[in-house]
């Protein structure tokens, strides 16, 4: 009993110690003010690196990502709010730079496409299953043909004898 438990605990431990995604922030980029650095990290995690496109600037080693990380910190030091920093970058690179895209006309498909497919598919499945059950209930079990009836009689007869 001990052994499976130990194995299970080891597995949990391994899962917990799985490498966290390493940030690309270099020591020389960090701000001295820990609270402000935390805000910078949070903002950077939601800004797309335009060079690699599927990484945030917090994760990317591209030179442009480094420039943008430094820019984010510079804006924070200049007294910008988080929203002002994000808007500063968005006004230059567009909505595409936001990894958490805003809800607007051009992003409706992005926001509601998935749920819409789920709802339509769910409704179709529900209708189909409902119709199949109604059809099955109406028809009842099919009557046995002659061969099946003979086999059934044989089986039942054999049990008696």
């Amino acid at each position, binding site marked *: 009993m001990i052994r499976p438990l130990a194995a299970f605990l080891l597995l949990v431990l391994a899962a917990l110690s799985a490498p966290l995604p390493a940030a690309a922030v270099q020591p020389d980029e960090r701000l001295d003010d820990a609270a402000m650095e935390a805000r910078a990290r949070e903002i950077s995690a939601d800004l797309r690196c*335009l*060079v690699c*496109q599927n990484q945030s600037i917090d994760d990317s080693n591209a*030179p*442009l990502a480094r*420039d*943008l990380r430094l*820019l984010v910190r510079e804006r924070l030091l200049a007294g910008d709010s988080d929203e002002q920093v994000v808007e500063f970058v*968005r*006004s*230059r*690179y*567009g909505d*595409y730079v936001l990894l958490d895209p805003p809800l607007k006309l051009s992003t409706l498909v992005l926001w509601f496409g998935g749920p819409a497919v789920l709802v339509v598919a769910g409704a179709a499945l529900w209708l189909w299953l409902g119709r199949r059950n109604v059809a099955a209930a109406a028809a009842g079990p099919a009557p046995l043909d002659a061969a099946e009836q003979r086999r059934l009689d044989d089986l039942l007869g054999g049990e008696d004898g």
Partner: protein
Amino acid sequence: MTRFLAFLPLGVFAAVALWVAIPLITGHDPRDLPSELIDQPAPVFDLPPLPGRDDGLANTDLGGEVMLVNFFASWCVPCLAEHPIISRLSQTVPVVAINYRDQPEDALPWLARNGDPYTRIGADTDGRVGIDWGVYGVPETFVIDRAGRIRYRHPGPLTPEVLNETLLPLIEELRG
């Protein structure tokens, strides 16, 4: 009704296939991002010249006539590839340049080797002006109208197709 429903999956497939196929066939690169700056005045900037030159480039140098702004760097291979087209264009329209994230001492030999078609060059050594222009890679080329507004942005190297089908007609139209 049932017969119609039987064809529904096929219809959905056709719609998705078209949606995916059209950008493939028209050669649209999904990495070409739209610019936020279209129809906006050029961002405010004032860049020093490359060492040993006395031009530099500022936003006040833009406008007056239709011109191109070309972001280039000596380390950038696609810039070398588009350089003959830039040189050809510079005979019909002034082309100014922003030397992006480059070592200034590398840029001058590069121009000496490949020809210098630019009327002015500003050195954006730390890439900060590039960020203000929304540049995410070199080369990028912007068309500026007489009023100094950005009218078009082409990310990536210019090709003869872009030149003939987009840039030259647009320049003609803006001069109109």
